[in-house]
């Protein structure tokens, strides 16, 4: 086999972690987490279509501490993937590619994720408590 001396890109590990690269990795990780989350929402719909006992069993799982922890992870992942997804769409439209803007929007995504998650839980707990 002939060997061609192609230039090789250095492997990921040689780079210092940067906000931009970490946020790119987290976009994928949160996407995978949301994939697992959607399975549970389909399960909830199936349970509601199946009968009251099945639905009560699912709600029992969702309201356990593992369920609540998973839901917190789910809301964090959803808001991150959603807001960072909008950042990606802006890049696709050709906006915000310069380094300063990329870092600014990256920081905005993190702030928006935390704020939206907190807001979601405050409202959810008020709604839940009012029942």
């Amino acid at each position, binding site marked *: *086999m*002939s*060997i*061609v001396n*192609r230039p090789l890109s250095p492997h990921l590990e040689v780079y210092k972690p940067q906000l931009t690269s970490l946020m790119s990795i987290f976009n*994928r990780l949160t*996407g*995978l987490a*949301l*994939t697992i989350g*959607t*399975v549970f*929402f*389909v399960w909830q*719909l*199936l349970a*509601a*279509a199946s009968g*009251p006992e099945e*639905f*009560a069993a699912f*709600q029992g799982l969702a*309201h356990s501490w593992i369920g609540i922890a998973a839901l917190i992870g789910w*809301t964090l992942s*959803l*808001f991150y993937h*959603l807001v960072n*997804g*909008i950042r*990606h*769409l802006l890049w*696709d439209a050709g906006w915000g590619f310069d380094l300063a803007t990329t870092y600014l929007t990256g920081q905005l995504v993190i702030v928006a994720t935390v704020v939206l998650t907190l807001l*979601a839980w405050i*409202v*959810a*707990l008020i*709604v*839940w408590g009012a*029942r």
Partner: protein
Amino acid sequence: MADRMRSPLGQVYGLGSAREGAKEWWAMRLSSVALVPLALWWVAEIIGHAGAGYVEYRTWVANPPTAILLILTIVTTFYHTSHGVQEVIEDYVAHEGAKLAALVILRFACVVLAVAGVFSVLAIAFGH
């Protein structure tokens, strides 16, 4: 430049760009745009129904605008998931056989889950 970087064997095998990536790229962008409002609506509804019981949950699903938006959200989400996880598999699963198996399982799982979700919404909406 491009020719100099390609080995004769690579040229014989037709390696290089598959020349059909644009539709995958477009599929992700299109579903992303659709999911911005759908996901916001969905999470707002989930928050609004925190701790809902069986009857209340079913009444919400059976409401026609909810049922339509839920079905749109389910179909778009699994379309987006299918293409998104495919990118991850193609990037990280090096073994061709394992890659093919993972992609087949992924597609089947996404279709099964989407059908299960849509069927559940319709069953509740039609009063099953």
